[in-house]
């Protein structure tokens, strides 16, 4: 295992961990930061996959702007997820 490969493994692992955290954190502001982190790690991976154009676009639009839009939305709604009993999949019920 050479050095480049171990960096790849590390970035992928970090990306997956921040995705899990973004989904699990109950503070939505923190979750949005986690989502932006996923985008940033993904843009690093794009760079390693020889796609600089995509890396730039993902960093500028995917990470920065969509996180900003999310934060504005949180500001106008509520910051914390409420704890309730689980009843998943509302969007497939008629």
């Amino acid at each position: 295992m050479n050095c480049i490969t171990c960096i790849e493994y590390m970035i992928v692992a970090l990306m997956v961990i921040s995705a899990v955290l973004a989904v699990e954190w109950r503070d939505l502001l923190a979750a949005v930061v986690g989502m932006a982190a996923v985008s940033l790690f993904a843009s690093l991976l794009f760079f390693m996959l020889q796609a600089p154009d995509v890396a730039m676009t993902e960093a500028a639009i995917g990470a920065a702007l969509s996180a900003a839009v999310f934060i504005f939305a949180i500001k106008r709604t509520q910051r914390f997820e409420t704890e309730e009993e689980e009843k998943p999949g509302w969007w497939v019920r008629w």
Partner: protein
Amino acid sequence: MVVKRILAIISILLIGYWLAQGLAGVPFGQDKMLVGQYYLDNVKQQTGAVNAVTAVVVNYRGFDTLGEVTVLFIASTGVGALLWKKKKKRTAKTEGSVVLTTGTKLLFPFVVLFGAYIFIHGHLTPGGGFPGGATIATAFLLLYMAFVVYEIPHKAFEKTEGLAGMSYVLVGLIGLAIGGYFLFDWIWQTWHFGTENIGRLISGGFIPIIYTIIGIKVGTELSGIIDSMLKEEVSE
């Protein structure tokens, strides 16, 4: 509760296994190019762009990009329509810190300039209209963060948005009139303009023009979205 969660996880893992089985037939890192190789072989002669991705985005698959610009236009229109209020105003209460306000004043022109640089050089370096436009929108975002009362000039921005979109379609229609095909690159293929300086700024046919239009459009649209989301209704 826990049971449902476990059920969800199991079904998701099944989907993942199924996807992985499909992906096993598409080996990673192998040369699978067919059309892509054609683009790489001919991109310089046919479009005059050095950056093959830009050539594909603007020229070969320009139709997709027109659609993409339209999607962003729909988003900004839709956000405007849904958050439409008779009277609305910004509701921020705290001004940014001194560092932020002075920094914004100083940085704003440079950020805009940098965005313009990115989209004008799209055919030579990585980047192009979308990151460039996003950078310009970031400059306006900074202004919104730093100053409580700042607002973009709406009417002008909306009109610029419309005009930029119209000029993109018009460039395509001129191609239809001159070359006989919609979105035909008439500057490069009919006029042979800038053929001798591939790799320098004045080349690439209509790519710089279209990327400038896209940059302006994306910048105004994203700032418009930010503006609509930051304002709330005021009761009289």
